[in-house]
């Protein structure tokens, strides 16, 4: 007989607020007149994320004392899960601020009609009539809601649904860049195909685990004792013939699916291309928030399996740990080594994000209870620095000026045509003089990512490496420190270019880049094709000119690098990120105390 489940609505409130606002956002698209749509969406999105965070804050004292399983574990709110939800809400809020900024150019980072075929007259028409794609805001809310659910469930099927709810909007968002349309669409297609592949592996793993346990929930439903993956492991089902193979293969496939979302080697191949091709505010959003959700889910799956197997079958436990160790080492190595030869800022930050996945996994591989707290802190520190850094990237732009017309002496943004982002590292030379505050903030984010003391990153890395060391993997911690040193080198390289090198377009020494004039080039739009991968990245040492092969400018014109003014939101986000990075580095104890409370993931 069917019994209607008791639903703890308060425990679901953060999810309902965020996802519900996404649905309302779609209705806003349907009924609010076009001119008011953008403002309505921004207010709605920010309010939803703030409201979700408020509910998380309300729930916190209660959950810390007594974790809640809603509907038999479909949503399992442990302090760890709720902590991850809170971090996602905060980072998504900051991410949306960057997304919402139109900058002094009056254009946001998104295509007027993302569905138009690149280079068509339809696209041109949409641009000229000033259309805007405000659907990005509901999509962001759906993605954020999916991430929050992803991090807080005990049920592998719900986790799969959450995985799709967070991924599908991101696939779409990746394709919406205003400039470099083909690159953006290519990124989306790659992300979609590889993401679908990873989802398939994940769901196959879930099927195998179901075959093993007869349940897709780890702890199981309290009302049905003995049913669940952990009870099945503990009852000795793994000793049955062929059963341990089902369990190990299932867990491995699920872990592979999660590692894909984390961006760990060897499942990282999509990361550089997608991070480069996606609109930069979206890159910041997904680099920060997806990583939080994916790592939180990974930690919960791994540690729940570990609870079961470490007493029953230590051999499986040892193998599981070895898998994570190997992936962590590979991820750190590829992230730092390949990252250090990049010539594109977005690509460099992408490899930095891969390296950070490695550092996070070093902590996770320790398999001891304090790791959960340090992982949450790491995710917060990394997320803040990432959103801030990509926020800065959105403001550093190329500008086309015609020499002799005196245009380039005017205020920024009022003369010449501001084009896309200047993402070549060589173009960032002399940025320290053009925009000292922005450079200072960016430097702070880089130092935090590098793990320099007095920034959030230091405390975070310290926690992760201590976690590995206290789990008996001191050599892995040493490897982590070594990889950090290599990473410091590539962050500092970017920093040196920004602060100590003279700008290429310094008026004293104009650098004229010649390129063919292409008839029919759309004004104000430059199609820059960076085929950039590791191999081309290494050969592009010649600087900016190497990849600016198809910039459509007349021979009389020149591309300068400029910093556009933010219209507010992005500046606020960058400032908040910078301040938070310092506060978390200098005075981390309140937040550390909070995440310490969160180191509990057993309902």
């Amino acid at each position, binding site marked *: 007989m*069917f019994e209607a489940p008791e639903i703890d609505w308060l425990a679901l409130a953060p999810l309902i607020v965020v996802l519900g606002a996404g649905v309302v956002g779609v209705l806003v698209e349907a009924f609010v007149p076009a001119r008011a749509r953008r403002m309505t969406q921004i207010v709605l999105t920010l309010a939803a994320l703030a409201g979700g965070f408020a509910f998380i804050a309300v729930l916190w004292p209660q959950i810390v004392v007594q974790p809640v399983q809603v509907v038999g574990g479909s949503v399992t709110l442990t302090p760890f899960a709720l902590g991850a939800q809170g971090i996602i809400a905060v980072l998504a809020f900051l991410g949306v601020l960057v997304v919402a900024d139109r900058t002094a150019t009056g254009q946001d980072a998104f295509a007027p009609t993302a569905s138009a*075929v690149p*280079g*068509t*007259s339809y696209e041109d028409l949409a641009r000229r009539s000033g259309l805007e794609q405000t659907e990005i805001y509901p999509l962001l809310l759906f993605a954020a809601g999916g991430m929050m659910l992803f991090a807080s469930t005990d049920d592998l099927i719900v986790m799969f649904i959450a995985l799709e709810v967070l991924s599908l909007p991101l696939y779409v968002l990746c394709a919406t860049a205003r400039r470099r349309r083909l690159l953006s669409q290519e990124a989306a297609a790659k992300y979609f195909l590889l993401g679908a592949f990873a989802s398939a592996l994940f769901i196959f793993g879930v099927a195998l685990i179901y075959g093993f346990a007869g349940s897709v929930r780890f702890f199981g439903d309290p009302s049905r004792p003995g049913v669940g993956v952990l009870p099945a492991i503990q009852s000795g089902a793994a000793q049955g013939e062929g059963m341990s193979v089902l369990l190990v293969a299932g867990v491995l496939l699920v872990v592979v699916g999660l590692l894909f979302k984390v961006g760990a080697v060897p499942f990282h191949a999509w990361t550089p291309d997608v991070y480069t091709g996606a609109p930069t505010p979206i890159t910041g959003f997904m680099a920060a928030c997806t990583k939080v959700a994916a790592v939180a889910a990974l930690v919960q799956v791994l540690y729940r399996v570990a609870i079961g197997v470490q007493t029953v079958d230590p051999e499986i436990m040892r193998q599981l740990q070895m898998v994570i160790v190997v992936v962590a080492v590979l991820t750190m190595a590829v992230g730092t080594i390949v990252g250090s030869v990049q010539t594109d800022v977005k690509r460099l930050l992408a490899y930095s994000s891969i390296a950070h996945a490695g550092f996070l996994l070093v902590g996770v591989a320790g398999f001891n209870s304090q790791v959960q707290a340090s992982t949450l802190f790491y995710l917060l520190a990394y997320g803040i620095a990432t959103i801030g850094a990509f926020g800065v990237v959105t403001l550093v732009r190329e500008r086309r000026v015609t020499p002799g017309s005196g245009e380039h002496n005017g205020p920024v943004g009022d003369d010449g045509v501001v084009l896309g982002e200047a993402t070549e590292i060589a173009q960032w030379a002399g940025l320290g003089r053009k925009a000292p505050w922005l450079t200072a903030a960016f430097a702070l984010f880089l130092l935090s990512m590098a793990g320099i003391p007095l920034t959030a990153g230091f405390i975070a890395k310290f926690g992760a490496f201590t976690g590995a060391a206290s789990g008996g993997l001191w050599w892995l911690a040493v490897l982590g420190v070594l990889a950090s040193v290599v990473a410091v080198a590539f962050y500092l390289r970017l920093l040196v270019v920004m602060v100590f090198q003279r700008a290429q377009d310094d008026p004293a020494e104009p650098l004229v880049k010649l390129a063919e004039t292409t008839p029919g080039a759309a004004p104000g739009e430059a199609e820059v094709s960076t085929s950039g991968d590791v191999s081309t990245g290494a050969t592009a040492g010649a600087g900016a000119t190497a990849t600016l092969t198809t910039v459509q400018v007349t021979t009389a014109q020149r591309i300068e690098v400029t910093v556009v003014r933010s219209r507010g939101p992005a500046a606020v986000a960058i400032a908040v990120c910078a301040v938070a990075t310092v506060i978390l580095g200098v005075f981390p104890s309140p937040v550390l105390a909070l995440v310490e409370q969160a180191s509990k993931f057993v309902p």
Partner: protein
Amino acid sequence: MNPYVPILILMAIGAVLALGGVAASAVIGPKRYNRAKLDSYECGIEPTPHAVGGGRLPIKYYLVAMTFIVFDIEVVFLYPWAVDFTTLATFGLVSMLVFLALITVPFVYEWRRGGFDWV
């Protein structure tokens, strides 16, 4: 007999039919190629090369497909609910109404944004 044997046999028959069909038509089928036969069969659109600069797509196709998905998903969940209507009682009814309301949202979006204005 192992209860999985019939499944294996079924899979084997399926594989033989699929591969055999391709192989047989490759061996004994008449081969009269012309331009139309070499075209890709892909929803009436050339998938490659990419239509740069002026390539036009019948966008209505996607609209129809997506509208179909809206109602398709709806029906997929309505049938099992209808079968167990009495057991699921009020809880099921309320859940279904919420689900229907949610699935109407994309439909309303499509309607308001001109998805059905084809002229």
